[in-house]
């Protein structure tokens, strides 16, 4: 960690004794109030949240004249975000330039002097923050994007006792993801239930979700639709039990970027016996693109050419396809991360539709807003341990404290 930080920080001494470096790094971490972990830790073993904080610390330490941050808070706790913004504010007040690229309106209105609103690569609005309101910018963002017929309904209720009486679709008991020191964790989901595992990245929410989806080995027992999943992690067993998976990294795991949209939609069970049924594939692609409002040049363009939002819609279109039988359990990791407001709303709507149709949904998220908009039950994960069920109406500051491990 210390070596990486020294590389990022152009003001670091060229030669430095390890002990001196360790203490300098500790002082740096304290001065930015960022939790960077142990100076001697190997970065390869650190969670992505900590890596992000190391990068931010490295950029701040060099004290540059212009600082550009691209979505720096995606993996920070609310407290860390506040202290980062306080230090950005101090830099700006001392006459240095800070450019913040963000999807979150609250961040803009808390910290920025001026804003430039971009949509689809074009400047929609440029003004002083004091001259506008969050409501105006929000409606501009939604308005400039594709019109959405089915805006989120809101008013999603947490599951009632009657729901709990239904048969369990997912039953995870005493699971510990391999390679972690998390305490054994148990949770279950019935038909039509939604559970959000909310955590700052690196606290194990995504790993728990990946264990369920057969993408990470674990100890303990996971049953989906009454079938026990192998501990070594087997996505095929998960899918055979009616499981569907929306991974965090769409480009690496969600889609085969070089294959066409039609081919992506046809996988994993393309139509046809031995040969591909081209007509059926084209029909399927046409239907799905229309149903899910996926904006694409043609069904034969490579998935890589889609925007992030359309890629995520494509993943959901494939995963919610009932050609493979009804989806019983959907596991989604950061389903709306990095998406524009309209695409995020569309993704949430799809998840809600599936839930209403009886699919049990498990979401891992690091964004309290996303979690609250999805509705359902919340469980805050801190260092691998669950907080116990919380209502989606839990106030943000309380969620933030739990995510940062300040309240139990």
């Amino acid at each position, binding site marked *: 960690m210390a070596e990486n930080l020294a590389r990022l920080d152009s003001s670091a001494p060229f030669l430095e004794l390890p002990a001196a470096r360790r203490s300098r790094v500790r002082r740096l971490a304290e001065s930015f109030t960022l939790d960077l972990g142990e100076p001697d830790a190997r970065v390869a073993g650190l969670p992505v949240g900590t890596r992000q904080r190391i990068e931010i610390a490295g950029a701040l330490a060099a004290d540059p004249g212009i600082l550009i941050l691209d979505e720096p808070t995606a993996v920070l706790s609310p407290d860390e975000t506040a202290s980062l913004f306080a230090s950005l504010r101090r830099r700006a007040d001392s006459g240095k330039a800070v450019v913040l690229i963000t999807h979150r309106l609250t961040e803009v209105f808390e910290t920025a002097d001026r804003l430039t609103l971009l949509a689809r690569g074009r400047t929609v609005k440029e003004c002083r923050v004091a001259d506008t309101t969050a409501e105006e910018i929000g409606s501009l963002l939604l308005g400039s994007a594709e019109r959405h017929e089915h805006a989120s309904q809101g008013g999603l209720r947490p599951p009632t006792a009657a729901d709990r009486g239904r048969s369990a679709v997912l039953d995870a008991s005493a699971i510990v993801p391999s390679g972690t020191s998390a305490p054994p964790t148990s949770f279950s989901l019935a038909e039509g239930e939604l559970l959000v595992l909310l955590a700052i990245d690196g606290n194990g929410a995504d790993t728990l979700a990946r264990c369920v989806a057969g993408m990470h080995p674990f100890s303990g027992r996971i049953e989906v639709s009454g079938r026990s999943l192998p501990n070594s992690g087997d996505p095929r067993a998960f899918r055979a039990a009616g499981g569907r998976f929306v991974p965090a990294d769409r480009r690496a*795991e969600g889609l085969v970027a070089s294959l066409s949209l039609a*081919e992506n939609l046809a*996988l*994993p069970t393309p139509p046809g*016996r*031995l*040969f591909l049924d081209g007509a059926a594939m084209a029909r399927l692609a046409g239907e799905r693109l229309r149903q899910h409002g996926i904006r694409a040049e043609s069904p034969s363009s490579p998935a890589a050419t889609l925007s992030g939002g359309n890629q995520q819609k494509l993943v959901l279109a494939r995963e919610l396809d009932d050609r493979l039988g009804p989806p019983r359990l959907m596991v989604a990791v950061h389903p709306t991360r990095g998406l524009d407001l309209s695409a995020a709303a569309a993704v949430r709507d799809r998840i809600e539709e599936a839930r209403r149709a009886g699919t049990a949904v498990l979401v891992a998220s690091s964004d309290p807003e996303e979690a609250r908009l999805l509705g359902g039950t919340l469980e805050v994960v801190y260092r691998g341990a669950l907080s116990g069920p919380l209502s989606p109406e839990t106030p943000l500051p309380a969620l933030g404290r739990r995510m940062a491990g300040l309240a139990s």
Partner: protein
Amino acid sequence: MTVVSRPRVLFAAAIAASTLVLLAVLVLVAGASPGEALAALVGGSVGSGAALGETLTRATSLVLCAAGAVLALRAGVLNIGLDGQFLMGAAAAAAVGPLLDGTPNAARLALLLAAAAAGAVFAAPAVWLSERRGVPPVLSTILLNLVAAAAVTWLVRGPLQDRAADYPQSRPLSTSVRLRPLAPGVRTTAAFPVALLLAAGSGVFLSRTKAGLKLRAAGASPAAARAIGLADAPLRAGALLGSAAFAGLAGGLEVAAVTGRLFDPFGSGVGYLGIAAALLGGTGAGGATAAALFFAALGAGSSALQRDTGVPAAVAMIVPGLLVLGVLLVRRRLSGDEA
């Protein structure tokens, strides 16, 4: 993406042109005129029926090895072991061939199946090492090539040696089993159309079958294939074994159609040239076949080059390597532009 295709064509033209210029310079250095050299190259490869026959005979193994290389590359496996698998196929044909009797066509089929199987069996250790021990097939198949070359050296001096001859070579196949030329005066046999058909079949398999689509998905993105629920390990293993069977079959056909026996050294690196053809052909079955035909013509032409102008045949065979390096350069440039 039309934006990409124009620089690609320009780059390809530039590379072909600079390769030709370099070749002309080398011919001048060797003391001949580039015009005469070109005439010898063209005349020796496609200038007459016999020359064309020579080209197609050389192309047979190359087309099969190139198709095999494409099959593995599309599944994300770099099978450097085509050459060793080719040798094992040839060895199997040389071992089984002299024993076969009876109806010629049944005997030929048995011979070629044995050759294809030998190629696949020889790649099996690479599959096992890769899936169970994480050893990259690039490494294991290179090492297996060394094993195959040593095995041929031993076989033709040991168990397969022709007692009737003093040379290190195997007993000949009986003439009833050997493939006959398609026309009098040329060496080309039915092996060439068979190779073309198989290469076309592998192209159809990749682009038009369900298994081919799954294989391309597993090759393009192993992580996504796994997450989607494809059995990526069996797909990779199948592609490598299939690729090896193509090379083994090429070895068997070389023995059955051209040499009639195994000797040492054998095959002059046709497996490596197959990989070069696959890369030059853009890892597609059609392109790879075209590149294999071009390399074969170059090989046939280079013999005429040496005979007619005294320029060493090796000079012409510099071209494949240079072309492939150029293609890889273009691809890197373009993927850089796209990113």
